[in-house]
């Protein structure tokens, strides 16, 4: 029979013969193993092994065919990365996307979250609409927006035309492709950040606002000294998710621009895909994967160590999605 969690970890010393107690322990162990096994097998086999495999193949020059790679080249794939202008450009463009997310999308999402936290008619409807794009896939959003930003007859240029402004090439102009991409990404995702921030805002007890008002604080002071600090954990998670999202951005780019024109909207994931699945430079593409992985890992660990650590007690209060 299973023992609930309340029992102390250290069980009494084992008996030399098979006692009922010992049989119960064996059965308990079996239960644990049997219940964990499916998840563990799948996770190890299809998440950890592939990542290990990427580490291994990144050390070879390999076209991806015929068993395992044989042409060992050490770290030269990684050395080549440091010289690859497209890859270095990916890093730069990733940084631009992250900065734009944090400096433009996040404040907008925060503003709207605070706005929808007010007593406002139709706010349920507004929230429903703002969040709706999140359920549309990146592919469907992307295809829709290739039409919206189409240089000939696209919605945006038609609107500009009404105001007598000449149309832009948007996604097919290297100068505007990345910004247009950012716009579409934000169109889909700002509602998600807004929902997170709104949930965080609603967790702040109204008594605090009232106490602030009693002490004569204006609405800016309440925002600056009560709302913003207490929203800190949520904001930091929102930033974290933006950054992880920017590192792995693929579907939307693939559909909108394919990374072009002349790599102006390419991301690391697209570069990896191009090398791995189009040019059959699997070893080199693996090196890109591994680098993406390392960047995510180092970033996530550092972020949790230095930024999220102090949030761990207060932030994780509501349990199990029962909001």
């Amino acid at each position, binding site marked *: 029979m299973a023992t609930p969690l309340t029992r102390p970890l250290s069980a009494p010393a084992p008996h030399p013969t098979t006692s009922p107690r010992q049989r119960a322990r064996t059965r308990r162990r079996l*239960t*644990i193993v049997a219940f964990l096994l499916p998840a563990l097998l799948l996770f190890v086999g*299809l998440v950890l092994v592939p990542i290990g495999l990427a580490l291994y193949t990144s050390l070879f020059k390999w076209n991806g065919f015929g068993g395992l790679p044989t042409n060992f080249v050490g770290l030269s794939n990684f050395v080549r990365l440091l010289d690859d202008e497209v890859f270095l450009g990916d890093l730069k463009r990733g940084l631009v996307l992250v900065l734009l997310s944090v400096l433009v999308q996040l404040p907008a999402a925060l503003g709207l979250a605070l706005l929808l936290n007010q007593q*406002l008619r139709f706010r349920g409807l507004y929230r429903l609409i703002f969040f709706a*794009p999140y359920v549309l896939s990146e592919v469907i959003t992307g295809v829709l927006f290739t*039409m919206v930003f189409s240089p000939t*007859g696209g919605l945006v240029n038609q609107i500009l035309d009404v105001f007598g402004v000449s149309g832009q090439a948007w996604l097919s102009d290297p100068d505007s492709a990345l910004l247009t991409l950012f716009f579409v990404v934000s169109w889909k995702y700002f509602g998600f950040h807004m929902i997170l921030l709104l949930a965080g805002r609603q967790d702040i007890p109204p008594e605090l606002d009232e106490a602030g008002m009693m002490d004569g604080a204006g609405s800016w002071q309440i925002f600056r000294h009560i709302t913003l600090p207490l929203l800190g954990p949520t904001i930091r998670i929102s930033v974290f998710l933006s950054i992880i999202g920017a590192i792995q951005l693929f579907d939307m780019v693939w559909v909108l621009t394919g990374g072009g024109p002349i790599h102006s909207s390419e991301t690391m994931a697209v570069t990896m895909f191009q090398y*791995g699945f189009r040019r059959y430079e699997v070893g080199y593409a693996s090196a890109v994967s591994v680098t993406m992985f390392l960047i995510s890992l180092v970033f996530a660990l550092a972020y949790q160590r230095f930024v999220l650590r102090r949030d761990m007690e207060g932030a994780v209060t509501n349990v199990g999605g029962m909001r």
Partner: protein
Amino acid sequence: MSRRERSLLQALPLHAICIVVGLGIVVPVLFGVLGGFKDNGQLSTNPFGLPSPWVTENYTQILGSIGFWQPLGNSILIAVATTLLVVLASAMAGFVFARYAFRGRELLFTLFTIGLMFPFAVAILPLYLLLRGLHLLDNPFGLILPQVAFGLPVTITILRGFFRTIPADVEEAAQLDGCTPLGFFWYILLPMARPALATVSVLAIVASWNNFMLPLVVFNDTAWWTLPLGVTQFQGQYAADVARILAYVVLAMVPALALYAVAERQLVGGLTSGATKG
């Protein structure tokens, strides 16, 4: 000016902001819906107005073709299978993580939570090689099983959190009545956890429904293509026929928006708890 009027006046700028943002979301979608009812000539001469005449062929032709229903059916099948498997495997693991103390438990659990940071993009290439070696390309399980594996971290995290809130008394009472751990899990814990199961199911359905990168490399055979692949394929095939593509995109949006209409609460609940705990 009455108090009521004054508060209305104060709310006006807030409504104005909301309406502008709302239009930014609705107008592109409406452009698609109405564009699907136009022909390409109308699209360029009359981009904003209502279609005149209303052309229904774009929609009816797509609704009458296998090129829409087959990917739709595949998407549904794969989403359902993924969701059942990921929820079952995660519930089992979450049960053990929540209610048993054993050596290495926290280490194992941390291993799963680290998985929260790994997107498909990082593992896609070796995953493809692995699936090719296992002869799982052009096989639905080649998509379903990896989706399950990558869905485990968030599902386990949320379910474990929920299972912890169920008092130990319930389990002790069940034991006294002669309930085995499996019996407790299946007949008592899972029914009690129905709201949490609904939440993680919605998350899993949406993730599977929207997945693009993995089906893109796993399915060469168009018979297995899912809706996102169908959309890009259709876009390539009818590149010049904008109205027709808009109609396809709009029809492809319908299932996702329908799910959103029914399960918005579960989705929001899952995302907020998944994010704050992950």
